[in-house]
């Protein structure tokens, strides 16, 4: 049994890692939880965001946090275009079609990246990449602490957007009753695309906050997709607060799993949680049927 001197830092490290997971899951909960689009391309699109941040930094010297002003809007535009140009057209409104389209998209994006960027893992080196913040005797990497705060801010913005704006109301209306939303004059295609765009913009935010402490490679999204789905299911579909709490829980479970079971078995806990939630609380911690 590890002593507190290691347990507390491990839990805190898990919380910061969990915040990174939550950032990825926030976009997914909007797309998957609200619009019921099973977006298998989520990981591949995160990878695109990470490459954008990487090249902005390496080619133009743009700090990843300054990229927050550039990459999320670009990712929003990409998401909007993908939804209107490909997913809607190829999906014909059928869930199984949409699932296959996003799966196909992910394969195309990953293989194109593999061709263009090779399978190298790339990192950026910023002056603060290895800075630490001391909290409760634990040395936490500064980029992860920033990502932790960033996850809360992003969740807050999304919550305000969904509950206080016309777009948010339209999205929620669409999620509850598609035909009804159409009948009251909501441009459903536009709102679908806006939602998808917002979800992908979240990935842009995640990419900017992730890269200072992480890497990018064509396969980087794989590790995040399953975890993000787990978080969405754990937190409750469509719940931003749920995604945040879910992400933090998963981060801590992973950290403690690594500590008690070893690095190779550490991730088992995440998928045990996934299965248990599906069996005993399919609506998730904060979810409700929509």
């Amino acid at each position, binding site marked *: 049994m590890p*002593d507190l*001197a290691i347990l507390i830092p*491990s839990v805190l490290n898990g919380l910061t890692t969990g915040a990174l997971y939550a950032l990825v899951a926030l976009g997914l909960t909007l797309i998957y939880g609200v619009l019921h689009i099973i977006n298998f391309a989520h990981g591949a699109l995160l990878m695109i965001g990470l490459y954008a941040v990487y090249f902005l930094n390496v080619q133009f010297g743009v700090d990843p946090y300054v990229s927050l002003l550039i990459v999320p809007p670009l990712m929003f535009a990409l998401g909007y275009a993908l939804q209107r140009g490909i997913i809607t057209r190829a999906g014909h409104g059928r869930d199984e079609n949409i699932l296959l389209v996003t799966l196909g998209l992910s394969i195309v994006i990953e293989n194109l990246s593999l061709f263009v960027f090779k*399978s190298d893992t790339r990192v950026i080196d910023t002056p603060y990449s*290895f800075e630490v913040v001391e909290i409760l005797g634990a040395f936490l*990497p500064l980029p992860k602490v920033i990502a932790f705060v960033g996850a809360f801010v992003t969740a807050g913005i999304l919550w305000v957007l969904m509950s206080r704006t016309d777009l948010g109301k339209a999205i929620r209306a669409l999620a509850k009753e598609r035909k009804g939303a159409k009948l009251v004059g909501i441009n459903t295609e536009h709102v679908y695309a806006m939602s998808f765009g917002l979800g992908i913009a979240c990935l842009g935010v995640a990419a900017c906050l992730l890269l200072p402490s992480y890497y990018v490679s064509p396969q980087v999204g794989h590790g995040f997709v399953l975890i993000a789905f787990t978080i969405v299911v754990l937190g409750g579909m469509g719940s931003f607060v749920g995604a945040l709490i879910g992400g933090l829980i998963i981060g801590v479970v992973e950290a403690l799993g690594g*500590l008690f079971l070893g690095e190779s078995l550490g991730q088992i806990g995440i998928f045990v949680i996934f299965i248990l939630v599906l069996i005993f609380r399919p609506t998730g911690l904060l979810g409700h049927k929509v």
Partner: protein
Amino acid sequence: MTDDKKSAGIVRRDFLKTTGAAALGLGVTGFPAVLRAQPASVKVGLIHPVSGFIAFSGNQCREGALMAIADINAAGGIKSMGGAQLEAMLGDSQGKPDIGAAEVAKMTEAGVNSIVAGYASSISLATSQEAAKTNTPHVVDVGVSDKIVTRGLPNTFRFGPGYGKIAEFAVDNLDTINKAAGSPAKTAMIIHEESLFGTGTANLLSQKLPEKGIEVIEVIKHANPTRDFTNIVLQIKAKKPDLIIPANYYNEYVLLARTMRQQRVEAKGIYSVLGGAASNYKFVKEFPEAAEYIMDCNHWFNPKSDVALQRKAAAEAKGLVYTYEVFLAYNAVLGLADAFERAGSTDKDAVNEALSTSTMDMSYMPYGPTKMEGGQNQGAQPVNTQVLNGDIEVIFPKEFASADAVFPMK
């Protein structure tokens, strides 16, 4: 197709008469040698992980091998074959054994005469196995697993040391260093990467260290790539070992060393065995604070050899960091070229035979006389290095040492 049509227009006998007379004329009149029939080139397949998680090392290997090929060609090629030039065929294993093996198969189809591969042990195992199917001479440049040369493959050779010898050497020298300091190190933790090289090295060290009175209190395996070592480093902090022994590739080594510094780990020494970065000028230059005092048991050149220093200078003039990948791949090509020279042909059996009887002078390495047994050069050995004042110094064996060991770390 066009060529076929053209040649059909020439009567074969006339063609032979004309060219035969012309050739005879040239020979008699003593035309410069350059216009004589050029000997066929000798194709050397270079298969390295030039992309993927160990791309840095793979590219270093490729550069080292290409430098050797350029140097050999500039010096007149393979003289016993009329000055045949070495021709590189390049392959990328992407860090994956199956892709490495597929590259060998492709090159064999394309008529390769020999292979130099594959940096990582797991890749070298696969490439040599594939090359063995056609008995194609295969020289392993870096891969340290002893399995590479204990499978009885008649085509597989290694001029550098394997991890059995390296682990033995590392433990013996650690014992010497520790005893000289009054035996302050009594416990150790091994952090290793998950593939054949890391796991094999860790197993050997776990067996040998207790014999020297150093208890291995934990062995932690990690994946490639790993981008967060916090958990592992927290475990190191909790266990407080006297020695931390990493055995991993460059990226992970750098991250581990930096995370240890970030988490303010205190140990009496960091003693790597085949540490991917500890004997790497890039690491020392980019992260001098994290690198200082780290000891390593690794491949190295003879710092007292003028030839080695000239090669180092030549590599650095090309903008290369002179890492072990560069000079081991360079040596592998030299060893191969020497075999072609003595075989006097590209006949696979003859080249394999020449490799198996190689006695090449490698005094630019800290090796004993070259003697192949089962494909392994018995003269090969590693050295101990330590990062001191921002430079890499050899601390053992004494005959090659450029500085004294500093242990425990300050």
